[in-house]
């Protein structure tokens, strides 16, 4: 038998982390829970309201509309960014001096602060003076993202693809570089086509990193705030008001603390639930 030594001093080593997590996660979260079940008319006077705000949010058409917008946006950018990212990763050189050049170029958009991305694309897409906006109009399309819902969506999606496809590229590239050269040789000897190599060697070998890429892109895009806020401010009308923008409008614009807190919690649970579903679905085959 081995004698286990117990040393209660170890708790002191964990303490800093516990305090940090408490201050930046647990306490704010509990404050939100607290707000979500109360009503206030100012003067720091609160009344208990139970699940009233939750019911109100879940039945609110405004929330449904934001949620639908959010789901469509996330769905669209995932459908574009994942295949595009994989395609770019496949096209990148495998060795030689161009590898680092490509990797740096790919990483650049990821290094730009989110509000700067929003501001850049705002100016870039302005119909009168922006390079993109003027060009599209010059091609004969009537394009004005501050007034046309479709143009606003197009611009927001284009911006997100520009900003975040790199992440998928880098992850997919890492997955590809971990495949030993012998696999490709073996496939050549078998006489496998380029498609078979992709379908039966590269894709299965990339599965893990792609799962992570999809999960990260899902969570990030579902929480998107800064870029569309700077680009369109949620407009025209409410057409690009995604969940987080809507939330801020309720919390800070209208100062409805109770409904905003309830909505935060629902929002949080939706992300948690969808991430879990994604992960289980994608990892199911792995465990078999």
């Amino acid at each position, binding site marked *: 038998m081995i004698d286990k030594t117990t040393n209660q001093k170890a708790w002191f080593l964990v303490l800093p982390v516990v305090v940090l997590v408490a201050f930046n996660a647990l306490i704010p979260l509990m404050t939100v829970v607290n707000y979500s079940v109360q009503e206030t008319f100012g003067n720091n006077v609160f009344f208990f309201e139970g699940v009233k705000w939750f019911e109100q949010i879940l039945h609110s058409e405004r929330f449904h509309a934001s949620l639908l917008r959010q789901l469509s946006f996330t769905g669209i950018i995932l459908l574009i960014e994942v295949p595009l990212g994989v395609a770019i990763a496949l096209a990148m050189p495998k060795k030689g001096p161009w590898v680092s050049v490509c990797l740096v170029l790919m990483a650049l958009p990821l290094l730009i602060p989110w509000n700067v991305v929003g501001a850049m694309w705002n100016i870039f897409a302005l119909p009168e003076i922006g390079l993109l906006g003027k060009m599209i109009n010059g091609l004969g399309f009537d394009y004005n993202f501050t007034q046309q819902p479709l143009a606003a969506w197009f611009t927001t999606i284009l911006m997100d693809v520009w900003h975040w496809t790199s992440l998928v590229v880098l992850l997919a590239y890492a997955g590809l570089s971990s495949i*030993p050269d*012998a*696999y490709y*040789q*073996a496939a*050549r*000897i*078998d*006489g*496998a086509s380029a498609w078979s190599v992709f379908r*039966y*060697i590269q894709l*299965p*070998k990339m599965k893990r990193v792609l799962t992570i890429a999809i999960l990260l892109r899902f969570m990030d895009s579902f929480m998107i705030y800064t870029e569309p806020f700077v680009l369109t401010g949620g407009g025209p009308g409410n057409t690009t008001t995604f969940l987080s923008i809507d939330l801020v409008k309720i919390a800070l614009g209208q100062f409805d603390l109770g409904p905003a807190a309830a909505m935060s919690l629902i929002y949080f649970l939706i992300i948690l639930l969808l991430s879990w579903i994604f992960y289980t679905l994608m990892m199911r085959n792995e465990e*078999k």
Partner: protein
Amino acid sequence: MAIELKEVTKVVGIDTHIHETSIKLEEGRFNILLGTTLSGKTTLLRLMAGLERPTKGEIWFKGANVTGVPVQKRKVAMVYQQFINYPNFTVYDNIASPLKVIRLPKKEIEARVHKVAELLKITPMLKRMPSELSGGQQQRTALARALVKESDLVLLDEPLADLDYKLREELREELPKLFHDSGATVVYATTEPAEALLLGGYTATLHEGRVTQYGPTPSVYRIPQDLLSARVFSDPPINTASITKRGEKFHYNETASWNVSERYKALPDGPYTIGFRPHHITLEPDNDESISVKGTVVVTEISGSESVIHMSVGHDTWVSLSHGIHPFKRGDAVELYLQTDHCFYFDANERFI
């Protein structure tokens, strides 16, 4: 005639991977490429497969020049050190994959897959995925895929290097039999001299992109053409010593001398080099031809019932392998017996004489 390289060289950038090489491998036999890492084994295999084009020279296969023919159009199979299988195919589909590419009828595919699965003893695993198999079973699957194609040329690039000791021995025993019955010409690359001896067949020794010798494995081992081939085909490394012939005697360091045997009587006097394997310098004399050499122990390694003694004699460091346990310490004086009748004699150009 199976596969023949005619004055083949391979240059990549400023590096010469293969110096001009001409070699004709024995058809339908087990051919071994023996050499250290970076000696050019893999490059030679890739050239034979058609995965790479030679910079100069021609490659002939079954009496036809196949130098520019892409790998898909040749009937070759290759197995690697890494266990290469399609990760999301079952073992059955993995083995069947090369047959599906050439669109054989389903019935025949089934028959052939089951036949090789039986040979490689993986029939119970046919429905599993490669990730659910042990390393040995994964490599068996890869070998089955090579065998099922019924290729005329099978290239094996250190296929046992990544396996555990037990599995390696087991598979090494089966390999020559498996391929002997298939009638294919097999080329097997390895870094281990012991493996070459166990596999038999024919061996080509490689050193820095050159084939130094090719012939039946036992004769390459027993009669190395030159010092390089002897070095490549010896583990632990072969010992060498500079000697001088004066009349009827060979002299080493003026401390030891022995009679010149009948075979070397006609040699002119002068400097020569001898090479001898560790088990030919021992603590006990073997016969009258063994001469005593005194040295100092550098390190002793004892493995089971054998002692490997590294010792320095003059400017030379030699390795000796003796039976029994002899726990010498560093610095101990030691007397060993060199079996001069088992030495290889090389001339000034390091050629075997």
